[in-house]
């Protein structure tokens, strides 16, 4: 019986010729990640371990990104804890405010994640790096601590669902619409404990930023990881960003999948997830007038350059609807700079949006755009749970950057075609 792409990566990192779904293994880690919320708990747990040092100072990434620049005194204390740990252990990949970005946009950009890696991160959206053909998955702080101390993690080898992407998506269809469509189809636990393996000739029409968005939200279907085959575009991306050697794994032809779905990309329409679950999806053409109070364009899901470019193309020469707050957050300092050089930031500001330095901020209701009771937000982020972005009686509608920008102009949830 053949192995899936994920199983092959895990087998290699466990030093085993073959693994099968359900098997418990211990695998070597290529990278262990933490942020300002999860790392302090991990550091505290590591203090309790009978180890003095981290397993490899080059294979740990510490990225304060959720509540930075520090939103309050307690957050500042957390960041200080992470900073002191990074200094004490001489952690190579610690990113201070001026050099940081939202972790899952930053690490690929810094070349720290490549095809064939096994990566754990104390953040659920660690699954993002599957876009490059790595096995990466979110864990908690104690797993992060164990990973930092030993360079190892235990895994139950997942079975997989195969998603065959076919056709070419229409003009305004992005990775976000594709993954929202899939989550709407299989539900928020549709891939529980499983790999989501993407395949098919439709992938060649997807930019790397589209693929990062899709892999990023595998967790919103309950997936352990999302993973793409490594093609020329992915290789080009890794060569541009990384000095590290990558290794390409391919699923065996006789690999077994729990289920297989064909997603016809050319048939997809802009898709929006209604409160309070990412599976509550509607295509934008079937939505009645839903007035909104705020738009957020950013996050580890959709704060990359492609996302800002498409949003700016819609906002160029237009104005944000009077009374609406529009917050744009480039995901990394590099993206911020590129957006500035391309004139995108000017477009946003002239349209009446604010532009923030990189932070997860509003996505998880931290700061930089909290909702009051009864308010509605269209957001390019990844979760719309109860109270996610503020008051327990506020609402988040998840959408692509194109839909978010169009909605910013009209003040209600809108298709890009309505304003272009």
């Amino acid at each position: 019986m053949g192995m899936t792409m994920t199983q092959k990566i895990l087998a290699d990192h466990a030093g085993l010729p073959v693994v099968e779904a359900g098997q418990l293994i211990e695998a070597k880690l290529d990278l262990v990640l933490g942020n300002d919320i999860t790392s302090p708990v991990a550091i505290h747990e590591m203090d309790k371990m009978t180890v003095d040092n981290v397993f490899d100072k080059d294979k740990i990434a510490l990225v304060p990104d959720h509540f930075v620049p520090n939103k309050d005194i307690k957050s500042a204390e957390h960041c200080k804890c992470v900073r002191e740990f990074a200094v004490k252990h001489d952690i190579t990949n610690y990113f201070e405010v001026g050099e940081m970005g939202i972790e899952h946009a930053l690490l690929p950009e810094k070349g720290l994640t490549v095809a064939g890696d096994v990566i754990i991160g104390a953040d659920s959206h660690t699954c993002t790096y599957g876009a490059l053909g790595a096995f990466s998955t979110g864990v908690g702080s104690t797993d992060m601590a164990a990973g930092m101390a030993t360079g190892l993690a235990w895994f139950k080898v997942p079975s997989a669902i195969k998603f065959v992407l076919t056709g070419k998506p229409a003009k305004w269809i992005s990775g976000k619409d594709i993954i929202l469509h899939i989550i709407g189809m299989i539900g928020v636990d549709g891939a529980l404990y499983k790999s989501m393996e993407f395949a098919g000739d439709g992938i060649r029409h997807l930019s790397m930023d589209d693929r990062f968005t899709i892999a990023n939200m595998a967790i919103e279907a309950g997936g352990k990881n999302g993973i793409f085959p490594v093609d020329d575009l992915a290789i080009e991306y890794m060569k541009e960003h990384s000095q590290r050697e990558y290794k390409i794994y391919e699923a065996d032809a006789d690999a077994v999948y729990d289920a297989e779905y064909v997603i016809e990309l050319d048939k997809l329409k802009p898709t929006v997830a209604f409160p309070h679950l990412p599976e509550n999806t509607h295509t934008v053409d079937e939505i009645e007038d839903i007035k909104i109070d705020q738009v957020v364009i950013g996050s580890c899901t959709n704060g990359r350059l492609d996302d800002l470019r498409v949003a700016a193309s819609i906002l160029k020469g237009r104005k944000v609807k009077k009374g609406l707050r529009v917050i744009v957050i480039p995901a990394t300092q590099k993206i911020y700079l590129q957006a500035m050089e391309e004139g995108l930031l000017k477009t946003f500001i002239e349209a009446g949006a604010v532009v923030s330095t990189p932070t997860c901020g509003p996505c998880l209701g931290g700061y930089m755009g909290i909702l009051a009771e009864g308010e509605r937000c269209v957001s390019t982020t990844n979760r719309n749970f109860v109270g996610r972005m503020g008051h327990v009686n506020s609402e988040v509608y998840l959408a692509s950057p194109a839909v978010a920008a169009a909605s910013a102009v009209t003040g209600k949830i809108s298709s890009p075609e309505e304003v272009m």
Partner: protein
Amino acid sequence: MKAHGKVFRYGDNVDTDVIIPARYLNSSDPAELATHCMEDIDKDFVKNVTKGDIIVADKNFGCGSSREHAPIAIKAAGVSCVIAETFARIFYRNAINIGLPIIECPEAAKGIEAGDDVEVDFDSGIIYNRTKNTQFKGQAFPEFMQKIIAAEGLVNYINNKNK
């Protein structure tokens, strides 16, 4: 090891944002987190929970974020066990790693209501509903996880291995 207490009953997809909202994640102190546990889904939970009580839920309990603060808050609030039809995978790992006992048991989830008096025997996986005099068998943990649970978490497990 046994747990015994009254049941707090929730539905599908109880996410980590309602278990412990991110607005409180500027703290990692278990006692402080416990004071906001389940706040956005059940604002009276903290007032009503007593040591040993049990949470029972349907599908995909703990979905969403990787925040270990979620099982930490539940444990620190005094909850002795969470029973669900299924758990989200990161929550599942985290609960085991910090020593919060959890059991997957669809039948028990269906057969237990809020306020029921329930007993759980972790060694046998038997869940006994005293109120309704019904019994269920939860899924046993693989041996490897039993070792982590027996060591009361991953940290002790690793320390024991290094001895």
